């Protein structure tokens, strides 16, 4: 972003990579898949690179409003320096906080989750998938809480997945009834409280019951939890966990 700005350019979109997208080894692949799609589309975008910092969501969900607001005001300042108006992100938690909570601190942006962006590109005819790589596959989609219940977005990821023409199946609890992966609300960063089961095991079992061979996710935390769940259930060979961006990138042959 800094480079483009120095040249006097204002990219249309800021792609907010997010901490998981930048550091998590598995989720970095999603970031890479998504930027390949952006390159394929010729989207006018930029990333903040090393100027990006945590937008404060995990701190906020763990009750540390002070730390959240310090991060947020810092991010808002960076974004206003670059006159950012539109943000795309692969992380529903980042999506939610930018869309719903930054306005309270003076940060107003048009925010899109990558599922919404991809859907828009398909709807506008800018993306087309002709390949049949997924034709013999069955995909089930796990709703991220902060996309689904949090922001009533159930259809975009499903519309996007439908473009690869795989067989789609739903889990018993889906859309607004969807079961959390167990990582929201800063649970990602701590062990779960004592109980008789891990939430991700419960959800993974439900995903396996569908008989799907691909569990699609659209959130870095869901991905960590469900990938762990598949390993725990020793199903990681037969059933794969992909982000919707990876599915589309593969469908496009990227």
């Amino acid at each position, binding site marked *: 972003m800094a480079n483009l700005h120095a040249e006097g350019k204002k990219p249309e979109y800021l792609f907010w990579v997010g901490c998981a997208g930048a550091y998590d080894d598995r989720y970095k692949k999603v970031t890479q898949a998504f*930027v390949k799609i952006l390159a394929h589309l010729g989207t006018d975008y930029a990333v903040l690179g090393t100027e990006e910092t945590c937008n404060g969501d995990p701190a906020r*969900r*763990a009750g540390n409003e002070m730390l959240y*607001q310090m991060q947020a*005001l810092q991010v808002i300042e960076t974004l206003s320096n670059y006159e950012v108006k539109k943000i795309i992100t692969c992380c529903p938690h980042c999506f939610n906080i930018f869309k719903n909570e930054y306005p309270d*601190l003076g940060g107003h942006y048009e925010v899109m989750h990558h599922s919404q962006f991809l859907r828009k590109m398909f709807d506008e005819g800018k993306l087309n998938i002709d390949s049949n790589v997924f034709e013999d596959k069955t995909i089930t989609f796990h709703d991220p809480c902060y996309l689904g*219940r949090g922001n009533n977005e159930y259809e975009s990821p499903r519309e996007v997945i439908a473009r690869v023409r795989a067989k789609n199946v739903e889990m018993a609890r889906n859309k607004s*009834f969807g079961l959390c992966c*167990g990582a929201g609300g800063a649970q990602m960063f701590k062990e779960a409280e004592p109980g008789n089961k891990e939430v991700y095991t*419960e959800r993974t079992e439900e995903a396996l019951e569908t008989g799907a061979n691909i569990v699609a996710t659209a959130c870095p935390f869901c991905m960590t939890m469900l990938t762990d769940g598949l390993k725990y259930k020793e199903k990681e060979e037969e059933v794969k966990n992909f982000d919707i961006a990876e599915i589309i990138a593969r469908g496009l042959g990227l």
Partner: protein
Amino acid sequence: MTKQLIFIIVLLITLGVFSYTISRLVRYFRYTKPAFPIRNIGARVKETFRVAFGQTKILRWPFVGLIHALVFWGFIVITIGSLEMVIDGVAGTERILGVLGPFYDVIIGAGDIFAMIVLIGVVIFLGRRLFLNIGRFKGIELKKESKYDANIALTLIFLLMVSLLGMNIGYIEMHGGAEQQFTGVYPISEWLAPMITGNMDQSAIHQLHEVNWWAHILLIFIFANVLPYSKHFHVFTSVPNVFLSRLEPLGYLPNMDNVTKEVKLMMNPEQDMEQEAEEEQSARFGVLDAEDSSWKNYLDALACTECGRCTAVCPANITGKKLSPRKIVTDLRARMKEKGPGLRKEGLDYSDGRSLIRDFISEEELWACTTCNACAQECPININHPTLILDMRRYLAMEEAAAPAEINTMFTNIENNGAPWQYSPEDRMNWAEEIYMNA
């Protein structure tokens, strides 16, 4: 005339006791904190029609949801008839709203049919509670009283419907005969009448009507005064609670403006500090006790019917953790009841050495929440549990620095290197280099 007098006295006693009870509950609102301004009346009316009158959220559980919806709609229609009874009782008239003509026929006819539907509904509800082993009706937060509570309320409703039908049957038989000179239409009662009054003479029929009329109106008075002491208070509170819902998406968490002030002060220290310091004295970050919660939290607590749909869908609860969203809400109600009288006497400085966190809700429960909003999504009357849970976390994290150790590590990481994990900010673009490496 004597009948009127007795009725008026009973009515006044009922209203007196009722307003006393309500005022006792309502006066605690003054100890609560602001939540949000009540704007956007149009959207609120819409939400009330959708969620309250439309019963859309309770219908997410289709079978019991439908029965509840029928009972609810029945109550609304039947209440119009009850109002007529009050007017009749005071004025010494009989079926005075009959002047409304066809409209009256529709209302009273629907009420008569609904009486039967509600009757069947509560029998099913009672059967479920007494004979079926339903997970939702159990839980550590449900004491014995709340079970009796439900059964007493359902029994009262049962008797209300029996007496309503009894009264209608008596009425049509009194005025029936060949001429059929009664006001209104009574499809169910007319069908039942021959079976009930087959060999009764006119005076017996008259008695049947009197007994049921009085039984019905007295049961209404008793019911209204039992409700505020039971979880069935929702009969009064749920519609206002829906009207006063938070309208933002569930993912939204309200901003803490007092924190914003402090943060801005830290970033910009030359700002006028004196006036800030004055205002901030009493404010505590987050919720430790009942009086730290907002009026909306307290209204939620008063409106909760303890149906347990929230707990039934809570991922933490499903997997055996201690957290139960229903308990969070009922604990707030219990704590306000416990501490409220003291607050009234001694003001906000009052302390009984107890608090909502720890004496009612453990830290373990609070940290088990994934903020997935399944509870809030499910609540038939739009109670929002996660905001209250988060406000309690805010107290723990900011006032006591009492977050779990791993969470504190996460905070430190964000402070030091701008990410919840311990990675260097310099490495933020490594993913991009790896693309070229893989290519």
